[in-house]
């Protein structure tokens, strides 16, 4: 049991999140009969997929003591590139996937490289790359452009019972990254660098290379999210990523991962993604303006961080 707790990095706060999910769920059932239907719950899951993937990337980066604000620009850019190359055959799709994955990794290597070797705070580095890529995306096209093969679009809408394929893919990704954090030396290094970079360096860990690998992984996950989003939209939207920089951070923080690094894990992020998606869905049923959803999300962020700040002092 304790091994399971250690492996999943479960924290007492996760019980709070689970309780909140249950509360929102019950509340949702009182709001509308259509809330707890398989169709709606599948919709909620569809809504989560892209955010879940970038939040996973953000979790790994924040665990290492960094932050990745490049998703906004990177997603927009990668969506445009993917839709431009994907064509309508398996061959063109695979080529587009390879190019976009490579571009995502390259973006990450640049983010990590500048952060590690020039010594610029990742907040600045990634904000810079994000802004550049947002500009490039809009230079490439002002309007949504390109297309994806129909079978790929169908795949992103496909379901196995109540589980969308996208959701199954997300669960697999979370298990994979969770396993990586628990059983690989790279995973241990992520925690070590996030906990105390100087101590990690003195212990002989290759801190700079680790950082580059972390941002590269983040960039790769961002590329995966871009492929999914393009499949859903069936075009490449040069504004697809707007807002994802900050939205990707919310579930990480609400899930109990320390913004300072070294502490937390993917379980908390997964639970928080579910909570936020359910909450947005319930508010939709209540016909509440999306502006109120922003307010609710903001309140949740501050409440979560205050909660952890209070705990840290005791």
């Amino acid at each position, binding site marked *: 049991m304790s*091994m399971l707790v250690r492996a999943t990095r479960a924290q007492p706060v996760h019980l709070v999140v689970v309780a909140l999910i249950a509360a929102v769920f019950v509340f949702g059932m009182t709001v509308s009969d259509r809330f707890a239907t398989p169709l709606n719950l599948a919709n909620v899951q569809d809504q989560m997929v892209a955010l879940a993937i970038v939040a996973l990337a953000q979790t790994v980066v924040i665990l290492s003591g960094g932050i990745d604000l490049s998703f906004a620009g990177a997603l927009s850019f990668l969506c445009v590139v993917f839709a431009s190359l994907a064509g309508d055959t398996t061959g063109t799709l695979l080529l587009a996937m390879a190019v976009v994955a490579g571009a995502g990794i390259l973006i990450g290597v640049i983010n990590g490289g500048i952060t590690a070797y020039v010594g610029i705070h990742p907040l600045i580095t990634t904000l810079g790359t994000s802004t550049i890529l947002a500009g490039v995306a809009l230079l490439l096209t002002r309007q949504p452009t390109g297309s994806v093969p129909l079978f790929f679009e169908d795949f992103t809408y496909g379901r196995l019972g109540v589980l969308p394929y996208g959701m199954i893919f997300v669960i697999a990704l979370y298990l994979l990254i969770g396993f990586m954090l628990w*059983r690989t030396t790279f995973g*241990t290094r992520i*925690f070590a660098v996030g906990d*105390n970079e100087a*101590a990690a360096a003195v212990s002989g860990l290759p801190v700079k290379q680790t950082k580059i690998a972390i941002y590269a992984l983040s960039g790769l996950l961002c590329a995966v999210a871009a492929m999914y989003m393009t499949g859903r939209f069936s075009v490449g939207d040069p504004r697809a990523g707007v807002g994802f920089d900050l939205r990707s951070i919310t579930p990480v923080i609400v899930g109990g991962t320390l913004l300072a690094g070294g502490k937390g894990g993917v379980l908390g992020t997964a639970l928080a993604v579910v909570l936020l998606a359910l909450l947005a869905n319930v508010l939709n049923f209540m016909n509440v303006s999306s502006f109120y959803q922003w307010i609710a999300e903001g309140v949740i962020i501050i409440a979560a961080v205050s909660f952890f700040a209070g705990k840290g002092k005791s």
Partner: protein
Amino acid sequence: MTQPFLAARSLSKSFGPNEVLKGIEFEVHGGHAVALCGENGAGKSTLIKLLTGLYTPTGGHVEFQGQPAGWTDPRQSLAAGIAVVHQEFSVLGALSIAENIYLGAEPRTRLGLIDRKALNRNAQVLLQDLGITLNPDDLVENLSVADKQMVEIAKALRSEAKVLILDEPTAVLSQNETRHLFRIINDLRERGMGLVYVSHRLDEIFEICTDITVIKDGVVTSKGPTSEYTHDSVIAAMVGRELGDLFPHKSADPTAGEKVLKVRNLFVTPDLPPANLDVHAGEIVGLAGLVGSGRTELALALYGAASATGEVALMGEPMPYRDPAGCIEAGILMLTESRKDDGLFLNTSVARNFAATTPGHGVHHSAIPPGHEDRRAAILKERRGVVVDHVGLPISALSGGNQQKVLIARLLENRPKLLILDEPTRGVDVGAKAEIYKTLRELADEGMALLVISSELIEIVGLCDRVYVMRDGEIASELRGSEISEEGIITVAAAETSTHHGVAA
């Protein structure tokens, strides 16, 4: 003599124009424990960083088993068998004991994954070998400071180390824990390992070290087998002058003056015994104790910067409610422990740093007339012995000693009745130390009451008229006159904790 495991050959290191180490000759042989002695800032840490490849030398070289080492990265020295237990622990709270010990060298399965069973098993064996009973799967953040230290040592020894460097390993340990560490050190030495032991505590050095090397101002001033030294000869080599020259005279009758500060039943923490202490006009009172014994916390409580309940009276007047602003107004001033973190405005001019807390005469409202600060700051050069070309320079351009003098001068502008100084000479060279000691004694002779916190026992012993020794958050003893010695303080400060507090209460 056999070839040393590790040696420095005319090793030098400069940072810009600042030469920190000059032509160091230093050897560690197998089966020997070499004490590296020197004051703070003498260059010990720099030497260690050079020996392990964290810094590259600007002159000379490091020799490993007779060959030039040429390390440019601590990983290379680690691989060669040079292990370091750092002063600031390099253990990571977020990882388990076993993960810490094998960080960067985790046992793997055939698939390249971390073999967690082997990881915990190997760590268990290593810990047992050192006589440490800890569960390797526990998170390090939950461990006591002493246990973290043990993990640090286990980590250093995970690979076949030839040389183990311990940087101030006992600074945070109790007497019992120190005993345990010494057994481990002696055991490792007898197995043929070479050890480098950095410590301020001379008693410990004479107990476990076979050789002594003394560094002062970046130069080796003395070295040889321990048997050729006495306490006094080591101190003389460290300080570079007789102790009598470093410290001014002491007060003939310290408690003769008026009682400036009277503290009764001050609870800094509700669950620890309260503090009682007095400081008289004209005396320098020392507050000694190990790191973490509660010295700074008590001082901050007296200064109103930490909450505490109890009676505090200044010049016979009770001070029912205290905060730093009220204390400054009443005449209690404090020099904080870390001048860079909470003392100086580093990028601001010397003059503005000096004038920051007092407006000075002729200043009304908030407007400071042009040139006013610079004119006021002239006093620094004229009366406070600060060496600076121009008071408009950023204070970061000054040496540590001169920065400290500016801070003390700033406090004196408030005409304190009681001056609390937390580590007043940290990172200050010997010459400036002597000047600061002299200044403090002059202030006492003029009738000020001074309370000095210091980790350097030499300083407490040489400077203070009376000493309160703290242990585990309470004042454990008061020493006067001839009772004030390094042995006397350490005996009280590092004694085992009594199991129950407040038995008498």
